[in-house]
């Protein structure tokens, strides 16, 4: 299968009072068509920035982005317009990502009005089709977001993202604000859509059980860097990076029999402003040694399984 998205050495720095904030620092990956890449990490690790930079909602500081065989690293205005059709985003919070003064149909129609050359009447037909696709009843056509619950609002967000028939969707914590019973409805909808439309997802989340469920590959980020990337099952069965191990052990499981040894990390994620050259996880890592002060390189430990830790071999 061909790679739909190829990212090389992507960097996004923000200026801050104290120096450069390394939100995304030298990340490379490829994502095949029809697959899902899960991106996990703690708040502040740069996962949302990565998603937004990939689709040019933020201008990358350095690095290359290839999409469907084209180099889109520094697009001009027309190219950017085309990218918007092919790459869409579903936002985290369906309570604040919708315009409160736009009705359901107006919100879903908006991307079509901006991008498609359809006639007004056809746009109405298309809007209704989209509502059917995401499972919003016709009677809500003229309703406003405040009249709807979180699940339905997120369905509107999905309909907006689908309106232009994109190839690739960045899903930025799309179910984090929802209750579990509703969360399951939305995840199933997204899986159905992926099958029917052949969509490629980049699924950004902090919820590790959701990411396991939906992803083909998982990338673990820490302070702007990719510390590990592996096929989903392998990541959960054989995590190599000490951070991944601690992260996985911290998930509370709803079972009494499955009491695992929990690794409690000391401290919290440190500042991403002007980070030191060595391993960024060092301060919280129980295995930190002198070697870790050197810059870490990404190694392929097994086919498709990448890890950035100089001691992963010794730790087993």
């Amino acid at each position, binding site marked *: 299968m061909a790679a739909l998205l190829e990212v090389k050495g992507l960097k996004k720095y923000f200026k801050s009072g104290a120096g450069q904030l390394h939100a995304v620092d030298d990340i490379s990956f490829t994502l095949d068509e029809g697959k899902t890449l899960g991106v996990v990490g703690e708040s502040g690790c740069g996962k949302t920035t990565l998603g937004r930079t990939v689709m040019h909602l933020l201008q990358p500081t350095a690095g290359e982005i290839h999409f469907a065989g084209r180099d889109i690293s520094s697009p001009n205005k027309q190219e950017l317009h085309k990218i918007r059709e092919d790459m869409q985003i579903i936002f985290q919070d369906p309570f604040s990502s919708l315009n409160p003064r736009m009705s359901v149909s107006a919100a879903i129609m908006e991307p079509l009005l901006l991008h498609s050359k359809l006639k007004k009447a056809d746009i109405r037909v298309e809007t209704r089709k989209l509502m059917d696709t995401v499972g919003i009843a016709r009677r809500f056509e003229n309703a406003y977001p405040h009249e709807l619950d979180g699940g339905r609002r997120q369905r509107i967000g999905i309909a907006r993202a689908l309106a232009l028939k994109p190839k690739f969707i960045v899903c930025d914590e799309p179910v984090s604000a929802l209750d579990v*019973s509703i969360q399951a409805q939305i995840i199933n909808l997204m899986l159905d859509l992926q099958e029917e439309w052949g969509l490629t997802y980049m699924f950004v989340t902090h919820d590790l059980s959701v990411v396991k469920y939906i992803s083909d590959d998982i990338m673990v980020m820490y302070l702007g860097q990719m510390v590990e990337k592996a096929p989903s099952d392998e990541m959960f069965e054989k995590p190599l990076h000490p951070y991944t191990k601690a992260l996985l052990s*911290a998930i509370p499981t709803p079972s009494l029999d499955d009491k695992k040894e929990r690794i409690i990390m000391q401290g919290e994620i440190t500042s991403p402003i002007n980070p030191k050259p060595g391993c960024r996880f060092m301060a919280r890592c129980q295995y930190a040694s002198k070697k870790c002060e050197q810059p870490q390189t990404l190694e392929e430990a097994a086919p498709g399984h990448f890890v950035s830790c100089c001691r992963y071999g010794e730790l087993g």
Partner: protein
Amino acid sequence: MLENTDNILEIKDLVVEYRTDDAVIHAVNGVNLTVKKGETIGLVGETGAGKTTIARSILRILQTPPAKVCGGQIGFQGQDLLAISEREMRKIRGNKIAMIFQDPMTALNPIEKVGAQIAEAIKQHNSITQSEAEHRTGDMLELVGIPRERYNEYPHQFSGGMKQRVVIAMALACNPELLLADEPTTALDVTIQAQVLEMMQELKQKLGTSVILITHDLGVVADSCDTVAVIYAGEIVEYGTADHIFRHLTHPYTIGLFNSLPKLNSTERRLKPIKGLMPDPTNLPAGCTFCERCPDATERCVAQSPEVVEVAPGHLVKCFLAGVKE
């Protein structure tokens, strides 16, 4: 007032409504709950189920109006908390019963030093000098793993996990007998959540505090709770020891909740959500509140509200089908 001296809190038939100009929202509809000394009881349920309203009724910090406690009793140390004067309530609130709020980002005063905020709670309930209060605040900070030197810092100088520790230190400052923890880790990352849960566990053992833990995360319940109350549309639909409930899921809603979670070891391609939505709390159905979403609902469920059945000693279920199907 308390019928059993092992119990620290007994809630009986609590009914709370929110009254607005055009509707009455039935938030809590006849909840019965007992908390034993030293136990952690988990209140589990979805947004709007009434979990927070129950906790706030105990402390009498509901915003009134629109909220109104329409009935019931809350027994605590020989008193009915709903009947005593506000003056007496003040002696209990923050002293014998304390609360950890959900969002540590907004629970602290941004323009006051964290140490002073904790010391204020101590001085409110104890007749001690400023320097004694400061000393005890330092001890509390150390208890939750914050160096006492940070007494004079402001909330914005702390990270989310640290702020939650400050909030916990404040709640524990007067050595309460009952702690109400309203989603104490929901706003935190899993790694920090693990730290905070571990710390609460240790503190509970050290101080012997009883805890009501409000959460929507069944993983957190499995991790920390002795007893579980599953709340749906303002009612407790299943109640019992965590051990018994997790091994014998009985109410269709509880079963649905567990089924809709993504499992870490599952190979299935689709989740099993509960269909539909929670009923409108201004217009609750006459029968079982869960009947519209229940896969096993019968005509009886639509017409009549089920009684609570004891399916095993201490395991209560509000469902007609409980005990029948097995």
